[in-house]
């Protein structure tokens, strides 16, 4: 395929991207220099319950996002090799290897990362993080809290839910001990509401691509999902997604698609290829194909929301995210996406991360 052919279907840039960059820039500035802002930092897995951290005024840092950043900035290979040099097998997850490599060398897209005060590890997104966080906790000599969410094969059982809810209470106690101050239920309600508000906005934005042509493609969603992962529970996330929704709604009104030409509507499954999103996007768009939805960005769009009993409700939400559910649920969800988004096909991306 020639370069000319690849450019026959221009991509329409989302204007809010400027605001997105400023927002994420401010966030990373804070996590890199927490002492300037009088904050403590916790590393947390992408599916970990972040709301209690914001309640306690702790800044979350996401090693997985950082791994994706290393991939997108094409620094992963050198960082993984640094970890391999320390004895870590090249078969281990490259998110983990990139981060471990960055930790040893002090190199990476953000340079040397600040030392976290403690780690929060939830296994609702994968099992790899358990050992990964154990290794990091040992290397950093800091405590780690494990939030264990048993895999839900069909439906969540009452005893599973109780088990997760108990851990949520333990988590709060852990935070109180680490920060030497009480957990404010009052503040938690506020943070919970903001989190739900941001999630609601994000879901609405993703749903706008049910329109023909789709106003926002999965490639955009992969980028613009960062605040829902890192900043849910903050005012910033709500502010940002309101702005983004407004822009995308305007596109729908004016029947503007994410790409000028949309002939084939496709759905993407699993993580994106961070190190080459651009080329994948070009190849698809040159064929008039647009990724209208995906299973990855909606993994953070928690479905169960009831604010009357936020701590227990949050437990249920975290125990039943997409990645922690059985095959039947996933098939149902994928078929649902196909129907709702009027898709012609599905790209299943199976990879060794």
């Amino acid at each position, binding site marked *: 395929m020639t370069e000319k052919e690849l450019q026959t279907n221009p991509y329409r840039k989302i204007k809010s991207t400027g605001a997105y960059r400023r927002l994420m820039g401010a966030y990373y500035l804070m996590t890199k220099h927490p002492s300037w802002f009088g904050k403590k930092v916790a590393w947390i897995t992408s599916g970990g319950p972040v709301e209690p951290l914001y309640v306690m005024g702790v800044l979350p840092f996401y090693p997985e996002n950082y791994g994706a950043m290393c991939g997108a900035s094409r620094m992963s290979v050198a960082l993984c090799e640094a970890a391999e040099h*320390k*004895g*870590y*097998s090249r*078969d*281990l*997850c490259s998110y*983990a290897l990139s981060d471990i490599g960055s930790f040893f060398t002090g190199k990476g897209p953000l340079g040397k990362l600040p030392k976290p005060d403690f780690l929060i590890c939830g296994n609702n997104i994968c099992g*790899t993080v358990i*050992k*990964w966080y*154990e*290794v990091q906790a*040992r290397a950093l000599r800091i405590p780690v809290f494990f939030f264990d969410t048993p895999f839900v094969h069909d439906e969540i059982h009452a005893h599973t839910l109780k088990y997760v809810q108990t851990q949520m209470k333990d988590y709060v106690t852990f935070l109180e001990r680490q920060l030497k101050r009480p957990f404010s239920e009052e503040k938690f309600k506020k943070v919970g509401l903001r989190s739900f508000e941001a999630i609601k906005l994000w879901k609405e934005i993703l749903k706008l691509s049910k329109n023909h042509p789709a106003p926002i493609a999965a490639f955009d969603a992969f980028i613009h999902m960062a605040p829902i992962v890192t900043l849910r529970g903050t005012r910033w996330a709500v502010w940002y997604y309101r702005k983004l929704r407004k822009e995308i709604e305007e596109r729908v009104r004016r029947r503007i698609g994410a790409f000028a030409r949309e002939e084939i509507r496709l759905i993407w499954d699993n993580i994106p290829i961070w190190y080459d999103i651009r080329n994948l996007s070009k190849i698809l768009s040159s064929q008039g194909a647009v990724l209208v939805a995906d299973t990855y960005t909606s993994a953070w769009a928690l479905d169960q929301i009831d604010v009357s009993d936020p701590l227990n409700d949050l437990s249920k939400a975290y125990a039943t995210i997409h990645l922690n559910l059985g095959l039947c649920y996933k098939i149902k969800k994928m078929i649902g996406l196909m129907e709702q988004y009027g898709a012609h096909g599905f790209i299943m991306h199976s990879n060794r991360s």
Partner: protein
Amino acid sequence: VKDVQESGAKGAIFLLYKYCEAHFFDYPDLNRALESKGIPTLLLEVEDPSYSIGQLKIRVQAFVEMLSPF
């Protein structure tokens, strides 16, 4: 480390199954702990069923010879 020291073993062999990440994540720290006490180690990575028995034999033999006094 305690096991090695108490048993009087001269070395330790890690036999890891390919892709078993639980063990591969622990290996670097365990290996470092042993080597810091001057205990030689050997890492063997096997894949079931397609491991090459001849290669494993040679590597174990070389490791044993390295540990032998003469």
